C-alpha cells in the first residue's frame, strides 16, 4: 500500500505508506481521546459534555459554571504542555538515535537533560530574579555545553562510548545539582526540586506558547532533514558516498535534537526515557520512511507523556505524582528489555 506524492516538478516528492497513514490517524484520534479524558479528570471531576462544550466555546450549554475556569486556566494548558513536551522529547530521541545509529540513545541518558537541569537549577538557586525570562535560554545553553563537552571527550571512539561518558557526566552533574539544592534557601530549592521531578503541575499559557513555537520550528526542521536521516542511518561511508556533507548534517541534526530536548526540559523538567521509548514504539507499530516515522514518533511521545500525567494525577490522588516519575517507572524496564533484545 504505497503511493507517491510529487509536487513542484519533483522538487518535493514523498512516498507515503498507506498503513502508516492509517496508523497516524489512529494515534491522532487516540491522542484526542486521551486529551478529552484528561480534561475531565482531576480533583474536581467534570462531565465530558461540559468540558467539550467549554472547549468549543459554547458557554451557554455548559451546566457547571466552574467549568470554564477549570478547563481554560488549569487543565487545557497542562494537557497541552504534556502533549507538546512529549512530542519534543520524542523527536529529540529519534534524531539522536538515528544519528548515533544506536537504539539506546536518549536525551536523559547522554547528559543533555542533565546539562539543561544544571543550568536551570543554578539559575533558580543563585539568580532567582531572572528565572522567568531566562529559563529556556539557560536550559539550551546548558544542554549545548554539556553536549559539546561529551563530544569533545568522545573524540572518534565508538558511538557506544557516548553513552558511557554520558553516564559519568550525568553522575557528576547530579552531584553538583544536589549540592546546589542543599545550599539554596528553602523556597527556591523547593521550586527547583519540583521542577527536577519532571512535572506539568504548574503549566501556564506562557509555557504553552513557548513550546508551541518551538514545536512548529523543530518539526519543520526535522521534516526538512528527514531525507538525510535515512541516508545517514546507512552508515558514514555510504552517506559520504551518496554525496552528503556528513559533518555539517550531523552538526545540524545534533543542534536540532539538543534544542528540542532543551526547550522541553526547560518547561517540564527532565522527563526520562520518552526520547528512548517513543521512536521504538513507533517503529514497532509500522516500519516506514523517516517522514512518517517522525510523525508517528511525535504522536507516540505526546500520548505517552499525557498518559503518564493522567496516571500520576490519579494513582495516589489527592497526592500528585510527577509525570517524570511515572515515565521512569515505565521507561526503565522497557529500556532493560530493549537492551536484552538488541542485536549488535
Amino acid at each position, binding site marked *: 500500500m504505497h503511493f507517491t506524492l510529487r509536487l513542484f516538478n519533483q522538487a518535493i516528492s514523498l512516498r507515503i505508506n498507506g498503513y502508516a497513514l492509517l496508523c497516524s490517524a489512529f494515534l491522532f484520534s487516540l491522542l484526542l481521546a486521551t486529551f478529552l479524558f484528561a480534561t475531565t479528570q482531576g480533583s474536581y471531576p467534570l462531565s465530558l459534555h461540559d468540558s467539550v462544550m467549554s472547549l468549543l466555546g459554547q458557554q451557554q450549554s455548559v451546566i457547571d459554571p466552574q467549568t470554564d475556569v477549570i478547563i481554560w486556566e488549569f487543565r487545557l494548558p497542562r494537557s497541552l504542555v504534556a502533549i507538546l513536551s512529549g512530542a519534543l522529547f520524542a523527536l529529540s530521541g529519534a534524531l539522536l538515535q538515528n544519528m548515533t545509529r544506536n537504539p*539506546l540513545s536518549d536525551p536523559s*541518558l547522554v547528559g543533555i537533560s542533565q546539562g539543561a537541569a544544571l543550568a536551570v537549577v543554578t539559575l533558580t538557586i543563585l539568580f532567582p530574579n531572572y528565572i522567568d525570562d531566562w529559563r529556556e535560554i539557560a536550559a539550551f545553553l546548558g544542554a549545548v555545553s554539556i553536549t559539546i563537552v561529551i563530544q569533545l*571527550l568522545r573524540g572518534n*571512539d*565508538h558511538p*557506544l*562510548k557516548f*553513552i*558511557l*561518558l554520558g*553516564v*559519568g*557526566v550525568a*553522575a*557528576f552533574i*547530579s*552531584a*553538583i545539582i*544536589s*549540592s546546589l539544592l*542543599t*545550599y539554596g534557601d528553602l523556597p527556591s530549592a523547593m521550586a527547583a526540586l519540583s521542577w527536577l*521531578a519532571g512535572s506539568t503541575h504548574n503549566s501556564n499559557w506562557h509555557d504553552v506558547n513557548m513550546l508551541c513555537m518551538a514545536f512548529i520550528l523543530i518539526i519543520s526542521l526535522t521534516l526538512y532533514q528527514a531525507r538525510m536521516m535515512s541516508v545517514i542511518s546507512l552508515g558514514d561511508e555510504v552517506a559520504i558516498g551518496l554525496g552528503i556533507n556528513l559533518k555539517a548534517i550531523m552538526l545540524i541534526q545534533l543542534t536540532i535534537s539538543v534544542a528540542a530536548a532543551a526547550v522541553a526540559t526547560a518547561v517540564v523538567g527532565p522527563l*526520562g*526515557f520518552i526520547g528512548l521509548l517513543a521512536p521504538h514504539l513507533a517503529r514497532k507499530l509500522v516500519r516506514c520512511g523517516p517522514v512518517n516515522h517522525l510523525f508517528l514518533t511525535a504522536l507516540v511521545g505526546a500520548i505517552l507523556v499525557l498518559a503518564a500525567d493522567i496516571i500520576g494525577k490519579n494513582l*495516589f490522588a489527592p*497526592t*500528585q*505524582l*510527577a509525570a*517524570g*516519575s*511515572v515515565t*521512569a*517507572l515505565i*521507561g*526503565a*524496564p522497557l*529500556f*532493560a528489555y530493549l*537492551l*536484552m533484545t*538488541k*542485536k*549488535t
Partner: protein
Amino acid sequence: MTRSKWLSWSGILIMLGLLLFAFIWHLSIGTKIIPIDELIQSFYAYNQDNFNHLIIQELRLPRALIAICVGACLAVSGALMQGVTRNPLADPGLLGMLTGAALGVVYWSTFVSSASLVWLPLVAAIGALISAIIVWSIASRVTGGITPLSLILSGSAFTAFTGALLAIHHLLDQHTFEEMRTWLVGSLLASNLATLYWCLPWIIIGLVAAIMLAPSVTALSMGEEVATGLGINIPRRKWQLLTCVVILTSVSVALAGPLGFIGLVIPHVVRFWVGADYRWIIPYCILLGAVYLLFVDTLARWLIQPHEIATGLITILIGAPLFIWLVKVRVR
C-alpha cells in the same frame, strides 16, 4: 624476604601511619578546632565536664569510626567486583546495589519498623542482593554477554527505576523522607554507634572472607580458563564472592547511605601501586578506603563551615571524573 615483598609490607606500614594521621585530623578539625594534646587527653583522662572532650567522644569519634569501616567495606567490595567481572568499571553504586539497598532500608523503616537496628544490615543486604541479581541477569542476556557497557547500562536503568520509586515514596510519605533525606545522598552526619555495633560482626566477616578469597580473585581476574586450570570451582567461588560483596555493600549502606564511586576510585589507585595481585590489593584497599573516606568526610565538614556538604556528593564529584577517564582509556 624478596625486595618486592619488603616494599609491600613497608607500604602497609606507611598506610597505617597515614590512617592514624587522617584519624587524628578528622577528630581535631571541624567547626571547632580542638588541639591535639586535648584530643589525646580525652582518651585516657575523659572528663565529662570538659566540652571539648564531649565533642570528641560523643560526636566525632563515632563518625570517624564509621567512616573507617564504610570506606574499607566499599573499597574492598569494588575491588572484588572488578576482579571477578574483569571489568574496570565495576562499582557497587554503578551496578545499582547501593540504591537497591537504600530502597530496601527505606521501605523497611516505613512499613515494618523504624526503631529496630538489628535487622537493618540484613534488610539492606537483601535489597542489595536482589538488585545485584536483577542487574546481572539483565546484563547477561544482552547480546555479547556481560561487558562493561551492558553492566553499566542495565545498572543505570535499574538506578533510574529505583530512583523513581524513591521519589514517589517521598511524595506519599513526607515524614520518612525528612528523616531519610540526608541519609539518602550518603552522609555520615547522623552516625551513631548503636548501628555500628550491629554491623561490626558483618564487617569483620566480610573483610576476613575477602582476604581469604583474595588468591582466587587473582586467578579469576586472569580469566575463567586460567582459574579452572588452577583448580578453582568457579560457580561456587563466584557465589561466595558475591555474598561477600553483598555483605560489605549492604553494611556500608546501612551505616552511611549510598556513597558513590568509592569502590571505583580506591581499587584503581591501589592497583596503580601494587599491581594485579589481589592478595595485596585487598589489604591496601581496606586501609586506603578508610583513609580516603576519613579525608573526604573531613573535607565535607570543613569546606563551608558552619554548614557541611553531604559526604556522598564529594565522593561523586571526585569519582565521576575518574570514571570518565577510565571509560576513555580502559574501555575498548
